[in-house]
């Protein structure tokens, strides 16, 4: 990156990440192409509805982004989403349950996240393996839980309010939840030493350790936060669908990774901004929505979805030539 510093550019241009700019340009292009098909794609109602749908993926992808920033990955996301949804549905009844449903669901996700973090940070197991294993364990618990007896799987009023209500007229609560998560993440990443350590670990954990940071604790907490974010996403999804279902999280793993990477974050860690993740989330949500509105059959949607991701990565996600 030293060569960019030498060439004097206007400060604004220098600060804009080309990957993020491309991602936003692609969003505009998508809406533009969509508007030829139907004027509705530019209507505020449609855009607001998309923001609402995007906010579930946005919350989930926030956790994934942190894991990717430290150069790891969290494959336990699908069943953490389900755990969050099912556990909060399970306790969300009665006066006490109503108050504790949402925190309880998130705490379950955090707990499994701590197991992930412990495995990665202290046992030095590759994150891809340990998160796969905890995913299987979480799935096992949920299968036993739902199969042994008929659980209460309907969402509590609080969860439904969080996902579908309007605290501010015209602005869905789900979007507010995403905004809150986004604000917290941005402050953490840019204004705290914890955030600085996250970027550092992604670049070279050894160097950060030698500078006196307890890197293992940072990794532990990153996975805990990631687990909590997945579970919170699950809570919102359960509120949106007004019930929790098995394998409801399966459809979110690949889009979450794709959103983070499309937003310009390096899968190897250490590079990426939250704005990029927002762009990636919006891009994927819009792409899925436009493809389904155009009534393209499921197989065509999958193919176009895959091709678009490859093409966009070829535009700006390439690594440097190894020399």
């Amino acid at each position, binding site marked *: 990156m030293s060569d960019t510093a030498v060439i004097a550019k206007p400060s604004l241009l220098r600060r804009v990440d080309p990957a993020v700019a491309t991602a936003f340009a692609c969003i505009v292009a998508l809406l533009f192409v969509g508007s030829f098909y139907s004027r509705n794609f530019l209507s505020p109602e449609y855009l607001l509805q998309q923001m609402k749908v995007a906010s579930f993926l946005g919350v989930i992808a926030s956790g994934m982004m942190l894991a990717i920033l430290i150069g790891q990955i969290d494959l336990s996301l699908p069943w953490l989403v389900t755990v969050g949804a099912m556990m909060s549905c399970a306790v969300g009844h009665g006066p006490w349950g109503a108050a504790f449903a949402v925190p309880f669901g998130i705490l379950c996700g955090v707990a499994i996240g701590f197991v992930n973090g412990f495995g990665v940070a202290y046992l030095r*197991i*590759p994150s*891809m393996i340990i998160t796969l294993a905890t995913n299987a364990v979480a799935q096992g618990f949920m299968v036993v839980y739902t199969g042994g007896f008929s659980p209460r799987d309907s969402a509590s009023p609080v969860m439904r309010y969080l996902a579908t209500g309007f605290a501010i007229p015209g602005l869905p609560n789900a979007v507010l939840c995403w905004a809150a998560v986004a604000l917290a993440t941005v402050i953490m990443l840019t204004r705290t030493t914890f955030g600085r350590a996250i970027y550092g670990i992604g670049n070279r954990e050894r160097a950060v*350790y030698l500078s006196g940071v307890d890197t*293992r604790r940072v990794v532990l907490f990153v996975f805990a936060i990631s687990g909590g974010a997945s579970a919170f996403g699950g809570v919102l999804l359960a509120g949106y669908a007004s019930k929790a279902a098995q394998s409801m999280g399966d459809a979110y793993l690949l889009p979450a990774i794709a959103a983070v990477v499309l937003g310009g974050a390096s899968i190897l860690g250490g590079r990426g901004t939250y704005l990029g993740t927002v762009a990636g989330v919006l891009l994927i949500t819009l792409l899925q929505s436009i493809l389904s509105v155009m009534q393209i059959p*499921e197989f065509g949607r*999958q193919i176009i979805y895959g091709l678009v*991701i*490859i093409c966009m*990565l070829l535009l700006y996600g390439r690594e440097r030539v190894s020399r």
Partner: protein
Amino acid sequence: MSEWWFWLSRQRGTLLAITIFVVMFTIYCANHPAGFSVNVVQTASNKGVLLAFVAMAQSLVVITSGIDLSVGMIFTLTNCLASAIVIGSPSRTGLGVLAVLAVGALCGAINGLIVIFGRLQPIVATIATGAVYFGLALALRPTPGGSVNETLADALTGRLFDVIPASLVMLVAVVLLVWIPFSRSVTGRAAYAVGSSETAAYMSGVPMRRAKFMAYTLSGLLAGIGGLFLTFFTYTGDAAYASGNTYTLFSIAAVVLGGVSLFGGSGSAIGAIFGALAFRTIGDLLFVFDFDPLWQPLFQGVVLLLAVSLGALGLLRVKNRLEWFG
């Protein structure tokens, strides 16, 4: 003496996988009501070879320090294709089999080209190609259906001389025809070299591109063989997203149990095969102990968690704390 020691330490992961499998399978047979009989072995082998083929496919890519998250989808795609074209007269069936294998290899080759020339990270590139392959599978089989040449299917899933499961023979044949030639060739050694250090491999003039390309292509081919066998077992093609995904994730688990390092450069496809067989046996163990099948996923998960945590024992030998951070 020292040469033997060197060989043993290189094959440690594979040998450990074989040991795990033998122990698991012995426990399984000892507690099975029918004991160690031909039928038990045949059922176990038919269940195990599918994952074994997919795990082999995964291991080839993992050795070059890549990862292929599309193996499950190639497996699904070839399953759907086989249910459409592997049928009819012997010559037509033969052509169909070849076409299915060619499509598998082609899918792998596309992955390879994108990773080598597109310079994308394998993990994200194969997520995207996996979506494309799954889309193609759905286009072929919007609903489960199709059929397959049943004579061939029964021959390959039955028993040879009434004793040996034919699927196991095919697995051995594939190892002898694909894995052994590859691992002993210059390209195969280059794949190991690329996996252990890309920079060093480049500096030594190792044919990196050819090695990676071959690894991805053969991986697609092996996943295709797996898809073909799935069709032989089920007689139908089914574009199921969940099953493709499960096979991808299980293949990673099998590869790790089989002693193939995810960082690349060590392990072997044979280890991956035994990892896959061991993983399947873990799942079946519960049945012989008369547990509620509901507990199977949890049991499988906990065993997997314990198995991967065992790898952490190596940390006890680390003297310099900086080595933690690789």
